[in-house]
C-alpha cells in the first residue's frame, strides 16, 4: 500500500454568513487507505466533504487531489478561450447588428427574381460591408463576449464535475439518487466518466454505442451485485428501502472507478446486520485499490475498519491518528461524552 497522499486538505475554512462551519482544517489521506472523519453532529464533517468535492468553494485554503489543485487556472488555455469567445461574439455582433444592410447589399441588390445568383459578388459585398460597418459592433460584442466568458470562468473555477473528473466520487448524507431511474441506470450514470458514446452514435444507435451500453449494463449489474442488491436492477431507485438506497449510492460512486470514494454516513439508518455487511463491503472496496474516506457515527464501523481517524469538533480538527490513539485521546472523549467525564 503506497503512502503517497491522494487528498491533501490544506488549512481549509468555510464560512456561511456568521457561521464558521469549518475553520482551518488540514487533513491528509493516504492512497489506498481507509480514513474516517468523525465528530459530533454539526462538527463540519459534511461541509469538509463538500469543500473537497467542489460543491462549495472553500472560503480559505485549498484542496489537492493527487498532488494537483483541482481548479481551472487562469492559464494560457483559459485566456485562449476568453479570447476566442471575444472574437466569436465580435464577429457575430458585427454580422447581426448590421444584418439588414448586409442582406440588402449582398442579396437584395444582386438577386434578380428567378435569375441565377452571383455568389461571388454576394459574398464579397457582405464581407465588404462587415468590414466597413462592423467596427463598433465588433468591439462591443467582443468585450461582452470576453467578459461573459470570464464571468463564467470565475464562477466555475472549481466545480463538482471538475473534481469528479479527477477521480473523486462520493455519496451523500441525505441520499441523492436519481429516484425515477432504475438501479442499473443510476449506476450507469456513475459510469458516465468512462463512457465515450457521442451524440450521433447515440442518436443512430451505432454499433459502438450499443456495444458500450451493453457492456455498461453488464458492469452495472455486476456492481449492483457487488454491493449486495443483485435481484433488482430494473426497479426504480425510489422504490428501494432506505438501507438499499445507501448501497446503491455506493455502487453508483464506485461505477466511475474513482481513485477515492467519499462516503458520507454510509451506515446511517442501517440495522446491525446491515452494518456488518457494510463494513465487509468497505473492505472489499479497499481491496479493489480504491481509497475510502468516510464520515461515520457508528463507532463499531469506524473503529473496526479505518486505518486513520480524524476528529472534527465545532469546525476544527481536534485530533488525528489510529483508532487506538483516538480512543485514548482525552480531547476526543471530551468531544463525545462531555467534559464531566474527564474528571
Amino acid at each position, binding site marked *: 500500500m503506497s503512502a503517497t497522499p491522494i487528498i491533501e486538505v490544506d488549512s481549509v475554512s468555510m464560512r456561511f454568513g456568521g457561521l464558521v462551519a469549518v475553520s482551518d482544517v488540514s487533513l491528509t489521506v493516504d492512497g489506498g487507505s481507509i480514513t474516517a472523519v468523525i465528530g459530533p453532529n454539526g462538527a463540519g464533517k459534511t461541509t469538509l466533504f463538500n469543500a473537497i468535492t467542489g460543491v462549495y468553494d472553500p472560503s480559505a485554503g485549498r484542496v489537492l487531489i493527487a498532488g494537483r489543485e483541482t481548479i481551472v487556472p487562469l492559464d494560457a488555455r483559459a485566456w485562449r478561450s476568453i479570447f476566442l469567445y471575444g472574437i466569436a461574439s465580435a464577429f457575430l455582433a458585427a454580422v447581426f447588428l448590421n444584418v439588414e444592410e448586409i442582406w440588402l447589399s449582398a442579396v437584395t441588390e444582386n438577386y434578380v*427574381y428567378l435569375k441565377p445568383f452571383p455568389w461571388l459578388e454576394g459574398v464579397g459585398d457582405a464581407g465588404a460591408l462587415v468590414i466597413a460597418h462592423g467596427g463598433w459592433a465588433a468591439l462591443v460584442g467582443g468585450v461582452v463576449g470576453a467578459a461573459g466568458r470570464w464571468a463564467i470562468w470565475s464562477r466555475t473555477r472549481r466545480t463538482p464535475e471538475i473534481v*469528479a473528473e479527477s477521480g473523486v466520487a462520493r455519496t451523500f448524507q441525505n441520499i441523492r439518487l436519481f429516484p425515477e431511474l432504475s438501479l442499473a441506470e443510476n449506476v450507469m*450514470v456513475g459510469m458516465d466518466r468512462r463512457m465515450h*458514446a457521442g451524440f450521433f452514435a*447515440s442518436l443512430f444507435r451505432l454499433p459502438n454505442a450499443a456495444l458500450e451500453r451493453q457492456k455498461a*449494463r453488464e458492469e452495472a449489474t455486476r456492481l449492483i451485485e457487488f454491493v449486495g442488491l443483485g435481484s433488482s*436492477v430494473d426497479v426504480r431507485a425510489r422504490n428501494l428501502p432506505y438501507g438499499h438506497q445507501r448501497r446503491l449510492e455506493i455502487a453508483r460512486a464506485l461505477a466511475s472507478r474513482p481513485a477515492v470514494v467519499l462516503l458520507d454516513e454510509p451506515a446511517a439508518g442501517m440495522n446491525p446486520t446491515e452494518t456488518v455487511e457494510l463494513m465487509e463491503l468497505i473492505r472489499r472496496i479497499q481491496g479493489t485499490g480504491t481509497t475510502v474516506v468516510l464520515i461515520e457515527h457508528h463507532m463499531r464501523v469506524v473503529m473496526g475498519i479505518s486505518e486513520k481517524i480524524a476528529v472534527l469538533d465545532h469546525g476544527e480538527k481536534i485530533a488525528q491518528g489510529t483508532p487506538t490513539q483516538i480512543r485514548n485521546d482525552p480531547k476526543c472523549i471530551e468531544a463525545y461524552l462531555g467534559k464531566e467525564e474527564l474528571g
Partner: protein
Amino acid sequence: MGTTSRATYKPAGLLSRGQCLLFGALLLIPCIELLFDLGISAPTRFVLGFAIVGIGLNVVVGFTGLLHLGIAAFMAIGAYAFAILTCTIYPFQLGFWPGLFAALCIGALAGAFLGAPTLRLRGDYLAIVTLGFGEIVQDLLKNLEPITKGTQGINPLPAPWFFGLTFASDTPKSWYFLYLAILILCTILVRNLEHSRVGRQWFAVREDELAARCMAIRPDKVKLTALAVGAGLAALGGALLASLISSTGEPGNYDFQISILALCIVIVGGIGSMTGVIVGALVMVGMNSILLPILGQKLQQAGIGTTTSVYLAPDNYKYLLFGLALVLMMRFRPKGIVAAREEDH
C-alpha cells in the same frame, strides 16, 4: 421487472408498445377515411406537426427538467429558415428536403446559441429568459424586413416530394402519411437518445443536478444538447407546418400563445412520455382544429349561435373551455394523460 440474469435483458425496442399502438391508430385514420369521409385527416396533419414540436419540447422540459416558455421562437426560426432557403424570391432555392434539413440544423444551432447564456440560471429565471427569447425572435422577424419580408410572410413554400411523387394541396392523405412517417422517425431517434448515454445524462441532470455533477457530468453540456435537440425538432415542426400551409404566416403567428400551447401539449399529454406528448398534441391541437370547428358547425346547423349576442356564440366559449380543461386536468390527472415511464418495460 426484477430480472437479474443478463441473458433476459434486451435493449429497448425502436418504439414502445404504446407508441406502436398509437401510430397504428394514426395510420388507420386515413384508411378509414377511404371508406367514410370524416374530413379529419387533413386537419390531423397539423397535429402531427405539433407532435414533433411537442417531442422537441419534451426533451427540454420533460427529460431535462428545464422550463422553456419560448419554443415558438424556434418554430419561427425553422419556418423562416426553411422559407428563406427554399422560396424563389430568395437566391438559395434549396428544395424541400435540403431545406428541411437545413431548418433543423439552423434551429438546433440557434437553440444552442441562445441557450448558452442561460445555462447557469435556475428554473424560473430560465423560464423568463426563454420567454424573452420568444418575444425577441418575433420582433426580429418583424423588424428585419428586407430579410424576412416583415409581416407579409414568405410564400409559396415547396411541398414535399417523395420518389418522384409531388404533393398537392388536394391530396391531404399523402401529406398525412409523409408527416406521420417523419413523426415516427423523430420518435425513434429521440427514443434512441432517451435510452442512451445522452438520455441518461438528461435524466440525471433533471433528477438531481448536484449528484449528476458529482458523477462528472457537465450540466451545461447536457443542457445545451437538450436545448439544441428541442430547438432543432421545434424548427423541424415549424418548417413542416409552414410547408403544409405553403407560407410562414406572420411572425405574430409564433407568439407566446403557441409556446404555451406546446407546453400544454407536453404537460397535458404526460410530461416525460413521448407517447403522452403525441396524445397531448392530438387532444390540444385536435380540440382546436378538429373538434371545435366540427362542434361549431353542428351547433350552427342546429341554429344555435346565429345571434349577435356575445354570450350565445359558441366561439366565445373557447377560451373558457380550454382554460377549464387545463385546470381540471391538472387537478385530477396532474401527471398527464399518459404518465411518464408507464410505457417502458
